């Protein structure tokens, strides 16, 4: 059989044309794949990329009706950064992240490992841990309202009475406000993380555990050498998700304390909300959100570098 002769395309017409052809070829070659991806790309464009780009763009303008009405350079940034509430809100936001890592990072891992080891009543416990996730928001808010109520009527204060302690001010104590808000968030969010950890744990090859048992390894050795190495990618992923998520905390302080007492629980996003919706200064809200975005971008890049390092 006569071999098919390949005709080489001469790049004489210049590089741009060649590049266009290459893109076109790539598109026609992967047409079906593009068709599958297209809806997501469009959604990403309209819901994520465009608002982000537009937000960054408009943060350099004075706005009227959310329309650019005059370029002001870094003026909005200067106004946000010189606001006496900014540093406090930034500090509080890192406070939320710190307390969140301290209070809510380990419980889902411990619960998932414990559930994975359980033989009886596993379903019941799984449901119990996940239950707060499906409790309606209003009901959850009321539960925590009554738990944290200062004075004799608060449920936690009743418990303190029963062991001979005096009333606590709970959310009204500026030192306790953030940890208490994080505690209520942990109660609601723990179930979701736990399910993800449990799924990862159930993907671990059981033969490894059997082999290590034969070798005489106990629970903690198995945890150290089998469970954690398998969990580490998802731990790292959820860690970053948690930091990014908590960094954007807004609804909880808004509904539980309004950012008080005396701005002790004011977060960056709540301050952004106030700028946009309470004071009608969207340009400042945009500038503040861009600042938040840059900080989160830094954290995410750090995560990817760390992940790469650990993978090697």
């Amino acid at each position, binding site marked *: 059989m006569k071999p098919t002769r390949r005709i080489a395309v001469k790049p004489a017409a210049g590089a741009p044309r060649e590049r266009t052809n290459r893109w076109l070829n790539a598109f026609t070659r992967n047409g079906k794949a593009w068709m599958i991806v297209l809806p997501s790309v469009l959604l990403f*464009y309209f819901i994520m*990329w*465009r608002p982000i*780009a*537009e937000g960054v*763009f*408009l943060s350099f303008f004075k706005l*009227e*009706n*959310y*329309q*650019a009405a005059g370029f002001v350079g870094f003026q909005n940034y200067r*106004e946000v950064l*010189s*606001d*006496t*509430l900014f540093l406090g809100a930034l500090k509080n936001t890192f406070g939320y992240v710190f307390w969140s890592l301290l209070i809510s990072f380990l419980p889902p891992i411990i619960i998932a490992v414990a559930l994975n080891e359980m033989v009886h009543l596993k379903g019941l416990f799984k449901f119990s841990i996940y239950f707060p996730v499906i409790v309606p928001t209003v009901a959850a808010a009321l539960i925590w309202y009554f738990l944290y*109520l*200062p*004075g*004799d*009527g*608060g449920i936690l204060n009743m418990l303190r009475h029963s062991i001979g302690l005096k*009333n606590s*001010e709970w*959310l*009204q*104590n*500026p030192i306790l406000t953030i940890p208490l808000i994080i505690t209520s968030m942990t109660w609601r969010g723990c179930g979701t993380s736990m399910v993800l950890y449990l799924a990862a744990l159930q993907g671990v090859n059981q033969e490894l555990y059997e082999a290590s048992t034969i070798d005489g390894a106990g629970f903690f050795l198995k945890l150290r050498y089998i469970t954690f190495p398998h969990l580490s990618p998802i731990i790292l992923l959820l860690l970053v998700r948690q930091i990014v998520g908590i960094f954007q905390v807004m609804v909880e302080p808004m509904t539980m*304390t*309004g950012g*008080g*007492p*005396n*701005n002790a629980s004011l977060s960056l996003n709540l301050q952004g909300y*106030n700028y*946009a*919706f*309470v*004071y*009608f200064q*969207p340009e400042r809200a945009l500038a503040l959100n861009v600042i938040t975005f840059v900080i989160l971008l830094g954290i995410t890049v750090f995560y990817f570098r760390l992940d790469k390092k650990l993978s090697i």
Partner: protein
Amino acid sequence: MLKKIAMLLSITITLSITGCMTNVNKEGASGTDEKVTISVGDWPTENRPQWVEQYNTYLRNMESKYPDIKVVPDEWAYDVNSFVPKATSGQLPTLYETFHTETQKIINAKYCADITDELEKAGYLDKMNPMLKELVTKNGRVYGIPKDAYILGLTANVAMFTEAGLVDENGVPLFPKTYEELGEYASIIKKKTGKAGFIMPTMSNFGGWHFMSIAWSHGVTFMEQIDGKWTATFNTSEAASALQFIKDLKWKYDALPDNVLVDNPEMLKLFASDQGAMYFSNPADFKLFDTYGMKKENFSVGPMPEGPLGRFTLTGGKTYMFKPGVAPEQIDAALKWLEITGESPTPTAELLAVLDENYKTWAEEGQVVGIYPQNVWVNEEFVKAKANVIDKYKNIDIKFAEQFMNAKDVRVKPEEPMNCQELYKTLDACIQAVLTDKNADPATVINQANSDFQKNYLDKISE
């Protein structure tokens, strides 16, 4: 890889910027059809059937009297979360309602239309209450029509005052005459009933708003224009003593609720459920009775207490504003709609009949009728006509509101001219600071607030 990311970013930014540009000036006047179309916000919902019926009657009257105008009902009511998205996307009703405290903010953000010429043409401007007109005016132009208005009074829970023995021979609460007396009475009530004697809101800008009357009566001036520059002027001993009064309510008189993080709904709930005996309020907030189930017999209202400089209070209520970009004929159509709903200044027989029907509906619905509100239209014939209708449908024993209505020495002050909401928010934080820390020094707190308010807001005023 970098090239691809750069390309993706540039496409996104280009498309976004194009998007930004193409959005400009989409707002245009509607109503180019034969009929002028207006949409009317705050249309009553099914949970208020009497008012649905009443509005349907208005609609029928409008159609028969002005067949060239089409009114489209819109149930959207002003709400902080949805207002900006609605305004930005051009989805506001032609005629919408907002609160007095929001009007200047809305005017500055250009989320409303200038209606001066139409009001002038209709002859409404001279008849409008000058104090209320101030709320909707900027640089001599008028941007709204106040719908209703009240002044803050000291509302008292009759049952709790009776339990504490603080009533006269007619069973009417002994309203404290001064702020010191207020603290003392509140303390007595707390001791006798075990419940809060006074409720002070501290969140969502309500704390700052209520603080204004206390501060004014102590002689505080919050801001002044010095050599053309706005300057915060409340770093004074007067402001510190006004804040000291709030601090005393908690730490000296022990008269406040255990929970000091109180917003407006929480305040109404505490008062209506006999958990607090007094608060500053709209003299007859319907939510007390409708939402929180308070009995009308438990309600009474007196004048604001007196401070070293006298009695001061401020106004609240709702205002009509118009969607930005509406055509003059739509504004005229909306004014005709207000004539149909009984809210225009000329008391024709037709309008009086509607006013009569409105008060009858309010009384049937269970609202307090009998206390004269602040009149939006101050032409004498209108004031008299309205008072007659109110008397006709009075549904409370007026002795429980007499002192409020007869107080002649109460001075009503308009809101502060610049960054009002920001000032209230700043003062919220001051109030929280002295209520959550027994050792907080009011003078230090107020000085810090003064300097923050100057730096964060007044220094940044560009106009």
